[in-house]
C-alpha cells in the first residue's frame, strides 16, 4: 500500500505545519501555482505507521548478515549516529562564520590527519560526497596535474577489467579515454599487458588493491614503477581499504591519489543507498589541486579554505562542501578504533574471509582463486552447480534471503562466471559465518533435489522475484491519481 492510498482530501498532520497561513499579496498571480501538487494527505500516525512498517520490509545490518563483496557492510556503531546529531552540529548553517564552527572544524581537521596517517598520503580533502565523487576528484586532479605541466598528450586512463564500474565512468566524466587491462589467471593484473599499454598517452591507472577478485596484487611495486616510468600517475580506489587498514598504506605502495569510502571502511551507514563520503588523499605533487573546502589549523583557530585561497584547486563538488554529518560519524568511529583498532579491522576482516573461504571450499564449493590468500573478500564460482543442476548464482542469492542472509555480490566482477563475491567483514562472529556455510550447503542440496524451489526463490520475502523486464519496459516511476488503479493490489 502506498502512502497515497491512505490519502484523503483535507486530512492533515496538523501539528507539523504552522498554525496560520498568511496571505501572500506581493507575488504576481502569473508566477503562482495554479493547482496543488499531488502530495499525500495523511495524519501523523498514518505516516509514522506507514514508514515504520515499510522499514520492516528491509534487510539491514541491524537485522541481518550482509556478506556483500566490495561493499563492506559492517556494524555501524550507534554512537556515531547520536554524536553526529548533537544539536550544535545539526543546527549550524553552512555559511555561518568560522567562529561558529570551531568544534565541527576541529573534528574535521582531526579526521583529515587520521586519514593521512592511515593511508600514508600527504594531504586529504574531505569534500567528495561519495566514492564516485572521490574518483571524479582524483582523476580530475590527475588531469589538472598534467595540464599544469603543459603535458596535453595524456588522454588515456588505464583500468583493469576487474575494476568497479565507477572507475571507467569517472574517467570518462573527466574527459579521458579508458583502456582496459586484463587480469591474469592468478588474479593479479597482467603485467605484460600493462607494460604494452603504457605510453606517452597514459595519464594514469586506476587500481583497487586488494582488487575486486579478492586478492592483494603482489606486483604492486612493479606496476607503480611501470606507470610512473611512463609518466602516468597511480590512482587508488579505496573501496577495499578495509582489507588493509593499518597493515599497508596506499602511499607506501606508490599511489599518487586515493579516495576512501567512509561508508565502507569507516563504518558510516549505507542508509539504503547513501549518504557516503569519499575523501581524497594525495601525494605532495597533487596537493595544489585538491577539491575545496579544506580545513586548516594555525595552532589556534580552524579555518575553511575555499577557491579564493586555493587557485589551482579543481574546485568544489557540491554547493557547501561535503557530507559533514557523515564525516562526523566516521570521525567518532576512527577515534573509538584508535591506532591499535585500525589494524584489527584488517586482521579480522581478513580472518573472517579466509575462514569462510576455507569452510566453503571444504564443503565442496569452488573458489575462483583457490591458491591465493583471500583478502577481506573472495569469489566462489557456482559454474559447477549451474551446469549440474541448472541453478545459477542469482538463484542461490535469492534463496539465501529465505535463509535470513543477504545475498553476496552476484555476477561481479564480470570476469568470473556465476560468481558470488563474498565479504563477511570483521564484525560478524564465527557462528554467523558457520550459519552461512550451512545455508549454502542446504541450498546446494535443494538445488540437487528440488531445483524449482531454488529457482523460484525467494519464498518468504514481502514479494517473490520481481519482473525487472516489465519494470524497464512498462515504466511506472511515479504514482498518479489515475495510473494507480491499474497496478495497485
Amino acid at each position: 500500500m502506498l502512502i497515497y492510498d491512505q490519502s484523503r482530501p483535507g486530512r492533515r498532520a496538523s501539528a507539523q505545519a504552522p498554525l496560520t497561513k498568511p496571505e501572500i499579496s506581493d507575488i504576481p498571480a502569473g508566477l503562482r501555482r495554479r493547482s496543488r501538487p499531488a502530495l499525500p494527505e495523511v495524519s501523523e500516525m498514518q505516516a509514522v505507521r506507514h514508514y515504520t512498517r515499510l522499514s520492516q520490509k528491509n534487510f539491514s545490518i541491524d537485522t541481518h548478515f550482509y556478506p556483500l563483496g566490495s561493499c563492506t557492510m559492517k556494524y555501524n556503531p550507534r554512537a556515531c549516529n547520536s554524536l553526529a546529531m548533537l544539536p550544535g552540529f545539526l543546527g549550524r548553517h553552512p555559511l555561518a562564520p568560522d567562529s561558529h564552527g570551531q568544534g565541527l572544524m576541529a573534528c574535521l581537521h582531526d579526521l583529515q590527519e587520521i586519514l593521512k596517517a592511515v593511508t600514508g598520503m600527504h594531504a586529504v580533502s574531505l569534500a567528495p560526497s561519495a566514492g564516485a565523487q572521490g574518483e571524479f576528484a582524483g582523476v580530475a586532479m590527475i588531469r589538472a596535474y598534467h595540464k599544469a605541466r603543459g603535458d596535453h598528450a595524456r588522454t588515456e586512463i588505464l583500468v583493469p577489467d576487474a575494476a568497479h564500474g565507477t572507475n571507467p565512468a569517472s574517467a570518462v566524466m573527466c574527459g579521458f579515454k579508458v583502456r582496459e587491462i586484463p587480469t591474469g589467471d592468478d588474479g593479479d593484473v597482467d603485467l605484460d599487458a600493462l607494460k604494452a599499454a603504457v605510453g606517452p598517452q597514459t595519464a594514469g591507472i586506476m587500481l583497487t588493491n586488494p582488487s575486486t577478485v579478492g586478492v592483494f596484487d603482489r606486483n604492486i611495486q612493479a606496476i607503480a614503477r611501470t606507470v610512473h616510468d611512463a609518466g602516468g600517475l597511480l590512482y587508488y580506489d579505496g573501496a577495499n581499504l578495509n582489507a588493509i587498514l593499518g597493515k599497508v598504506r596506499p602511499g607506501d605502495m606508490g599511489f599518487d591519489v586515493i579516495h576512501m569510502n567512509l561508508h565502507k571502511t569507516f563504518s558510516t551507514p549505507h542508509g539504503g543507498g547513501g549518504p557516503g563520503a569519499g575523501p581524497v588523499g594525495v601525494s605532495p605533487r597533487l596537493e595544489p589541486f585538491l577539491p575545496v573546502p579544506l580545513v586548516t589549523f594555525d595552532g589556534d583557530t580552524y579555518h575553511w579554505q575555499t577557491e579564493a585561497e586555493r587557485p589551482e584547486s579543481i574546485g568544489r563538488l557540491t554547493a557547501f562542501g561535503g557530507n559533514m554529518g557523515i564525516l562526523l560519524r566516521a570521525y567518532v568511529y576512527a577515534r573509538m578504533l584508535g591506532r591499535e583498532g585500525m589494524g584489527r579491522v584488517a586482521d579480522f576482516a581478513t580472518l573472517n574471509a579466509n575462514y569462510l573461504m576455507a569452510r566453503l571450499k571444504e564443503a565442496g564449493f569452488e573458489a575462483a582463486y583457490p591458491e591465493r590468500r583471500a583478502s577481506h573478500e573472495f569469489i566462489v564460482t557456482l559454474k559447477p552447480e549451474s551446469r549440474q543442476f541448472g541453478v545459477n548464482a542469482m538463484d542461490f542469492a535469492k534463496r539465501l534471503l529465505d535463509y535470513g542472509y543477504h545475498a553476496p555480490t552476484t555476477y561481479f566482477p564480470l570476469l568470473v562466471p556465476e560468481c558470488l563475491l563474498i565479504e563477511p567483514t570483521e564484525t560478524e562472529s564465527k557462528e554467523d559465518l558457520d550459519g552461512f556455510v550451512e545455508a549454502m550447503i542446504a541450498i546446494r542440496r535443494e538445488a540437487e533435489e528440488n531445483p524449482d524451489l531454488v529457482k523460484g526463490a525467494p519464498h518468504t520475502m514481502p514479494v517473490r522475484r520481481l519482473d525487472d523486464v516489465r519494470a524497464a519496459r512498462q515504466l511506472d516511476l511515479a504514482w498518479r491519481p489515475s495510473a494507480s488503479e491499474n497496478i495497485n493490489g
Partner: protein
Amino acid sequence: MPFVPHTSEDIAAMLQTIGADSIAALFDEIPAELQVGELADIPAGMSEMEIAALMQSRARADGQPICFIGAGAYDHHIPAAVWQIATRGEFYSAYTPYQAEASQGTLQVLYEFQSMMSALTGLDVSNASLYDGASALAEAVLMAVRANRKNKSTRILMPKALHPAYRRTVRSIVENQDIELIEVDFDPKSGQTPIACVEAAAGDADLAALVVAQPNFFGVLEDVDAMTDWAHARNALVIGVVNPIALALLSPPGDWGAKGADIACGEAQPLGMPLSSGGPYAGFLCCRQEHVRQLPGRIAGRTLDLDGKPGFTLTLQAREQHIRRAKATSNICTNQGLLVTAATIHMALLGAEGLERVAANCHANTSTLVEMLCAIPGVEPVFEGAVFHERVLRLPAPAADLLRALAEHSVLGGLDLSADYPELGSALLVCATETRTQDEMRSYADALARILATR
C-alpha cells in the same frame, strides 16, 4: 577489541580451519617492505564515553546562534518523527536496494519520493536523488547536452543571478567535458534576468540549454514563462533550478511557458534535512518522460512479482555505471538514500497544505524582517522585483563588519554578498524562515540599529 566479536577460542579454531599459524600469516602475500607497524600519528582508541564527552563539548562550543542566513540552506522545522523513523536500523543500516525482494521498504520509499517530486515540479519523472542541488545542476547540464536532439551544441546559458556556489560546482564537474558555460547578466534594478540579457549572452550560435533559477539567488522571481518560451524558440532545453518549498506556492517548472521546462533540479534540504554545516543534503532531478533514459542516478519502478503482486525494483539500470561502465549517464553510485527517506517522510507529514503554510510563513517572516531592518536609516532593499522568502539589502557600512558585530550577539545576520557581487556595494542577503519568531527578528533589528548607531 571494539566491534570485533572474536574470542581467542574462535581465532584459534578459525586459523586451524584455514591452516594458518597466525593472523599475520594471512597477509603473507603483501611484500614485507610495504607492511606498516604502529600508526604513531593516530591517537589511541577511546571508549564511547570518552568520545561522547569530546563531541558534546565541541558541539556545545559551536553554539546555537539565531540564523537569518538562507542562500540555499534553510532553517526549517523538522518533525520529530522524520529522523526517529529515518534512523531506524532497517533504513539507516540497509544497503542500496539491489536485492529488491529484501529491500521493498527502501524501494517503495524511493518510488514515493519520485512521485512527490514529480508532483511538486510538475514533470513526469524524477530520479531517486543526487548528492546536492549544485551537483544535480551539473548533472542536469550534462543531461541536457545529451538529451537535446535538435542540435549538438555544448553551450549552456547560466544566469549570474544563480547561486555562486552552484555556478562553481557546475564548472568543476563539467569543464573537463568541453561544455561551454556562458554567463547571463542580471538587471541591476530588478535583480531579474531579463530576456535582453539572455539574448546578449546567447549570440547566434546553437544552444544546448538555458538554466532558469526560480527564485534566483537574490530571492528575486524570474519571468520563467518568457525565459522558457525564448529558449524553446531557440531549440534550447530549459533547466529549472527550484526550491521545493517555493514550489508549494510558485508555478512548477512543468507549467512554465507554453511547453514547460524540460528538466528541473534543486536542493531537497528544505524537505526535512538539518542545516548540518552543508551536508548531507540531497539533490533532486526531474524531467519529461522523453528524456528518462538520459536521467543519471538511481530510479525505482513499480512492477509485478512472479505471483502478479505489485512490488518495487531499481529500473533502467542500463543507464548506470555498474552496468554500462564507461558509457553510463554518470559515474554516480551511492548518494543520498537516507536523506530521501527523510524527505519522503517529511513531505508525507506536511502534505501540500503544510508546505504551503511553511512557504507562506517564511515569506511573511522575511517581509516582516525586511520591514524592521529597512526602518533603520541607511538600510534599504537593493532590488525592486518580487521575491520569495529572501531579499538583498544595502547597508550603510561594510556588511562583514556588521555581521561580525551581530555574531557577538549570537545573531547570524545574513550573507555578505560583497565578494561575489562587488557591484552591489555593501549588500546582505537575508532570510527569515517560519522558525524565526517576532522576538528574534525584533532583537536582530534592535541589535543592528544599536551597532550602526555606535559606529
